């Protein structure tokens, strides 16, 4: 029983990690920029939602509004700060991207931690625990898992079925080839950056359903996101989803048995081992 409950918790946390990891994967796939500021957008979105809610706005409306604004902030950062990076090619571009987003992430982190030191974001549902066949399931965990799954399915449909989604995959496969077919990578990069940051914001809202988001958590979210993306093979969206779920389960079990602090260490060591054993990711897709 306990094992199944832990498994459920792990899967729902893992789906949230997948949402984060997919954002990193898409942004890296399109622009070769490893977004080290990804986790800060999680915190930005939850703080925006809190501000709207304390202003007396409807919960659902304020969450949607904060997701949109987070996406727009992402667009602003991408257009203002990352455009000089795209002028470079190859290794220099990757290195510049890392430095820019590293500086950005520490700057946002220190701003948020100092401006909103006492922010605690958590959404509590007015329902009691469900008992299904002897299992006690928290409705918030279930809701988080459902929302995350539907968001991931929507993303998959967008990438597979729509014209713009196909264009996105073309750029990820071959930038020059895509340009020759008349696809403009710059606009798609901006679109994907907005989508990625909005998904990071959604992950933050969902994390508020299972636990509490504080302003200090940005760097942790960033690490989780990057780790999920790397373990899934930096370029594979499905790899990121699978690795997110696996790592979420690992996290749930290790934090139950070893406590929060050491579980993170075990988690990170597991990831280092995955990266060393399979640098191309858990699904093993060679780029």
């Amino acid at each position, binding site marked *: 029983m306990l094992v199944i409950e832990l498994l459920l918790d792990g899967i729902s946390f893992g789906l949230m990690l997948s949402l984060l990891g997919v954002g990193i994967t898409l942004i890296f796939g399109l622009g070769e920029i490893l977004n080290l500021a990804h986790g800060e957008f999680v915190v930005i979105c939850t703080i925006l939602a809190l501000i709207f809610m304390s202003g007396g706005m409807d919960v659902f409306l304020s969450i949607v509004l904060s997701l949109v604004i987070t996406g727009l902030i992402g667009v602003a950062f991408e257009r203002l700060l990352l455009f000089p990076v795209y002028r470079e090619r190859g290794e220099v571009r990757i*290195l510049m991207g890392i*430095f820019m987003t590293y*500086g950005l*992430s520490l700057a946002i*982190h220190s701003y948020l931690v*100092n401006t909103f030191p006492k922010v605690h974001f958590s959404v509590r549902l007015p329902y009691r625990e469900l008992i299904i066949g002897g299992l006690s399931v928290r409705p918030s965990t279930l809701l988080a898992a459902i929302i995350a799954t539907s968001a991931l399915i929507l993303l998959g449909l967008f990438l597979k079925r729509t014209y713009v989604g196909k264009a996105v995959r073309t750029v990820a496969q071959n930038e020059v080839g895509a340009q020759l077919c008349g696809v403009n990578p710059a606009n798609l990069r901006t679109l994907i950056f907005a989508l990625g940051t909005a998904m990071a914001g959604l992950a933050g809202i969902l994390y508020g359903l299972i636990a509490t988001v504080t302003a200090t958590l940005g760097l*942790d979210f960033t690490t989780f996101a*990057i*780790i999920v993306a790397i373990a899934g093979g930096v370029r594979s969206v499905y790899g990121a989803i699978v690795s997110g779920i696996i790592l979420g389960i690992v996290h749930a079990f290790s934090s139950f048995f070893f406590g929060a602090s050491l579980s993170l260490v075990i988690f*990170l060591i597991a990831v280092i081992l995955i990266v060393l054993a399979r640098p191309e990711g858990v699904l093993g897709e060679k780029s």
Partner: protein
Amino acid sequence: MRKVNVIQNLIIFTAYIILPLLLNNPYQLRVLNLLVIFTLFTISSNIIFGHTRQLFLCHGALIGVGAYTSALLPKSLAIPPWVVIPLGALFSACIGSSISAISSIRRLSIVLMAVLTLSLQIIFGEVIVGFREITGGDEGLVLRHDIIQVPSAINREILYYYLFVLLLLVSIIIYNRIVNSHIGVAFKCIVEDEIAASSVGVNVVKYKILSAFIGSFLLGLTGGVYAYYNLYISPSLFNLDLYILVMLVFGGMGTLAGPLLGAGVFTLVFELLRPMGPMTTLIFGVLLIILFLYFREGLVAWLRRLPTLHRSISGRTLAK
């Protein structure tokens, strides 16, 4: 070449030795100490990143390993601190060189390396917090002994200053030796093009591991002495990578004067920004972005270009 180097070294050495005699305010002496400490950190980062382009985002962890090892071992094992500090440095060097060995043998891309080292930095902090009974956790660890018994007649700050300067001078001499030897030539090849370097017979893996070993040894050594200088260490003191990278990029990678100038300027900037409190991180984050965008060549290269710039401008006016 040799002669210029000797004269240049002599000027640097005398400057560092005379500086504290001009100051007597304990605050200024502390800032001076921090300046030398940061110079040592930046020199190590220069050896690792500036000379072989290995991206380490875990400088703080390597410094912290040196500091915690040399603070904790004498407590449990009754060994004098000056034996333990090199041991701690050796421990950091082993960690640093194994990171380098793993990533250069497996040819990890720069992205994977950033992630690997970033997670090591977080593992370090979590391990310190996790083993609270031994390390003191978040509250930190208070050290009770100096490296040597300080006679009360001598100012403690000045004593440690000269210890750090001794460390700095030795590392500058060793740095010059390395850069002017065949190793330095190999480093230059690696920075230019790794594949080309290995095609002309440079053992890229060996030199990368060597540079990571030297750099992390120096980081751990400075960390160990810093623990005894500060008499207090906590995991939050070791989030230093941003500052070290700003100093290195501003000063100029792959030069000796770069780290000296970069660390000098930014330690003072850091002190000027101290009234801003924790917001300094924000300013340094923005600085890193701006420097990397518009000043990637560094101060040293810019200063070197200055005379030719001047000449070309005056040449143009003459032509008119």
